[in-house]
Structure formats: C-alpha cells, structure tokens
C-alpha cells in the first residue's frame, strides 16, 4: 500500500496543545465515514463519521462499553483478530481506505501503531524491545539500530533513565517506564499515527504526568488518538474530543468547547458526572 508508506509532508508549525483547534482547517490523517461494526450479530458501532486532523491529539471518551476502544481498534484493523467481527463503511487513513480487504494489515499496523492500557514489554532487554520492530522489518546494521533505539528512547523521554542499562531486562523497569518503553517500541517502526488505549490508567500521578507530557511533544510529529476514562486527562492532552455513547458518536469538537459548552446534553451530563 504505497500511500501508507509515502514520505510525510512537511509538518505545519504545531502549537503545544491548542484546545481551541479549528479541526476543519487541518488536513485529515484519519477520515471515518459511516462506519458500522459488529461482533457476530451484535452491532457495537453505529454509523460513525469522524475526522482526525493530522499531527493533533483526539481523545475518545464515554462510559464503559460505549464502543470507543472498539472504534480505536478498527483504525489499525486490530479487530480483525476477533472471530466473527465485521465492519461496513469507509476508514481513510491518509487517503487510503484501510477497510479494503486487500490492505496489508501488517504494514498498516506498522504505520498506525498502538499502545495498550497495560504495558506489554517483551521479555527481552530494553535495547531489544525497541530494536525488535526494525529488526523484523529487515534492519540488521547494529549501528543503525543503536541510533534508532537511542532516538526512539529519547522521543519517549526514557533515554536518560535507561541509557546505562540498555542490555538489562525490560521487565525490571517500573510500570511508567515500561509504558514509555512500549511507546518507544511503537515509534521504532516509524508510524504516522499512534493509537493509545488508556495508556496511563494503571500509572501513578508522576508517571501519568510524564506520559501526558510525552503526548504533548509527540503530537508535533504524529497523529494521536487516545481512549481515556479520565476527563481531566482528555481535557489536558487533546485538541479534539469525541464523546461516544451506546455505540454512537454523540458529539465531536474542539476540546475547549466540549469541556466548557458542549452542544449535546448527553455530553454535558457525562462530562459533569451526572451519568456514566
């Protein structure tokens, strides 16, 4: 899929986290149109249409079971792994419909990386965790790999903490460090889009703070879609917020607007804690 692998255009100057971001003025990294998703006969997503601007952070919020994680996983076809699942509609990633059965999902997931709620380091050294993706893709040059590992660990704000013990087991890192290692591992395959499913929900406040700062820095070069149950986190890190309820997209808009004067009463009731 050449469109997925083409070089990224020169990024516009991106402000820190502008919660008033006028998303209509940004090119879309992801453009979902009329998506429906089913687990067997059970429909869990209903007619979702959502544009994700490139090099921005979009937060998906909503009560448990509303479909936000399912939606996130459709963006790199992780749901294909669930037997009996199917979807309809269009999901354009940088202009290419990734719901086309002909799409190479391995290549897709290389360019649309994912960070999970629970950190999932491989039982290998810190270095090997980050080098794993490029190695599998054919990179054998040790010097190139070393540069790549350092670069990714720096981008993930972990380099200074691990540079003297790259060959020790990743399993010995703290939970927060493991999660940042997973982000570094995701960055190593040179993705354009990073999907995060509650990446800080199991972390202490200091580690959460580091992850949030990291998201703020990464969005200058990457498009990030994050699922979170933490309303404050959504308001802190995202430019755009989308509220899901019972499998439907109730409202999407600039984060500032969603958290000061949402258009829909359901959104207001959810974010103010009146239900959910």
């Amino acid at each position, binding site marked *: 899929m050449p469109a997925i692998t083409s070089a990224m255009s020169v990024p516009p100057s991106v402000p820190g986290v502008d919660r*008033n971001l006028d998303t209509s*003025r940004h090119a879309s990294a992801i453009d979902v149109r009329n998506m429906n998703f089913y687990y067997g006969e059970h429909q869990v997503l209903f007619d979702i249409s959502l544009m994700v601007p490139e090099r921005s952070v979009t937060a998906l919020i909503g009560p448990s079971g509303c479909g936000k994680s399912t939606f996130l996983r459709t963006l790199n076809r992780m749901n294909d792994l669930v037997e009996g699942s199917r979807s309809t509609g269009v999901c354009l990633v940088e202009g290419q419909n990734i719901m086309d059965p002909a799409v190479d999902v391995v290549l897709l997931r290389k360019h649309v990386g994912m960070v999970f709620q629970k950190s999932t380091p491989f039982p290998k050294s810190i270095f090997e965790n980050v080098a794993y993706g490029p190695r599998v893709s054919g990179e054998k040059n040790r010097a190139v790999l070393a540069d790549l590992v350092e670069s990714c660990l720096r981008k993930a704000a972990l380099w200074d903490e691990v540079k003297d013990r790259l060959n020790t087991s990743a399993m010995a890192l703290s939970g927060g460090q493991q999660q940042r290692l997973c982000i570094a591992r995701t960055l190593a395959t040179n993705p354009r889009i990073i999907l995060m499913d509650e990446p800080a929900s199991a972390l202490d406040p200091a580690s959460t703070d580091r992850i949030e700062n990291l998201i703020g820095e990464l969005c200058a070069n990457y498009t990030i879609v994050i699922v979170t149950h933490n309303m404050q986190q959504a*308001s802190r890190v995202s430019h755009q917020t989308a509220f899901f309820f019972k499998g439907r997209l109730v409202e999407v808009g600039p984060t*500032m607007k969603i*958290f*000061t*004067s949402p258009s829909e009463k359901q959104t*207001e009731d959810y974010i*103010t804690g*009146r239900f959910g």
Partner: protein
Amino acid sequence: MTIHFVREMEHLHRSILSMCSAVEELIHDSVDGLRSGQTELAQELSGRDGEVDEWDIRIEEECLKILALYHPVANDLRRVTVVMKICAELERVADLAVSIAERSAGIAAHGSFPMPERLTEMTREALSMLHDSIDAFVEQNPNAARKVCQRDEHVDQLNRDLIDDVVTVMKQRPELIEPGLHLFSVIRHVERVADHATNIAEDVVYLVEGAIIRHPRLPRRAGSNRLGGAE
C-alpha cells in the same frame, strides 16, 4: 458527580444570593439617601460595605475550593466562574453605594443644588437593571438578561444629558461648582451601577448558553465561544 460536590454548589448558590440581597439593599439605601440628603448615611453604609467585602472573599474562596477539588466542567464550570465574576461586580456596586452616599453628603454640605429631574429616572432605571439582572441569574433566563443589556444605552444617554445639565448650572452659578462636582460624581456612579448590571446580565447569557456576548464588535477567534463579528 459526588454528593459533596452537589452540596458545595448549593452552598455557593445560597452564598451568592445572600450577597445579591445585601448589595441590592445597600444601593437602594444609598440612592434613598441622595433624595433625603442624610449626611450620616455614608458611615453606616461603609460598615455594611465591609460585610459585602467579607462575602466577596468568602465566595471567591468557595469557588477556588470547588475548582481545586472537583475540577468542574461544562455548565458546572460556567456556574462557578460566573459566580466569581458576579461576586466581583456586586462588590463594586457596594463600593459605588458608599461613594454615592459620600457624594450626597458633599452636596448637602454645600447648600442646595438644584437636583435634575431626570436623576430620579436614571437611578430608578439603573437599580431596576441591577434587580432584573439578578433575577435573570436566579431564573437562568438569558432572554431577560439580554433585555437588561439593551437598556444600558438608555442609561448612558441619561448620563450624558444629566452631565450637560450639571455643567450648565455650574457655568451659570459658579458658587455651585463644588456641589456640582459631587453631583457629577453621583451621576457617573449611577451610570456605573447600570454597567455592572449589564456585566452581570452578560454573565447570565454565558452561564446558560455558553456564549460570550461581550465586545460584539471584536472579530471572533477560531474555536472561541464568543459571539461577535466575522473572523
């Protein structure tokens, strides 16, 4: 939403309503003193202004506590910020009430200055605007609030006319310049009361609709909640 948060918000609402009553009473007594020429009123009102200042601090602290502990969003956030703003407006109205009483004493001390007839109309209108803006806040009625905003221009016109009247008297009778200057200040203070009422009414529109209606002539920024001209 925790029961603690609900209780804090209810308490905040009761506090701001108490402050509204205290300030309305204060400004009414001040304007009554203008008519009756009571010279000792300023001191009494100054004491009551101190109580309003205490409300001001207490309500601000309540708002900061809610913001820090509960991180309110959407209509809850708008309510807390609007209460903080209304509280500041009311505190200034109370200050103006004291100033009006002090100026009234100044006028009385320098003999009789011919009171312009339209001053009564102006004070009645300004106080009515304040009352209606507070009612709009209590009822969360943006339409009533917008009507208050529309009345400000009438008070501004009365202000200009009355200032002209006072200047005319001072030119014709230079011995009345000193009480004339006191009256000049009274007129300005009453006009400011109407401005504060307008500000409160604008805050009510924001509270209910999430739209900032101040400064409509300014261009609207992208993503802003402010209503206004084209970008």
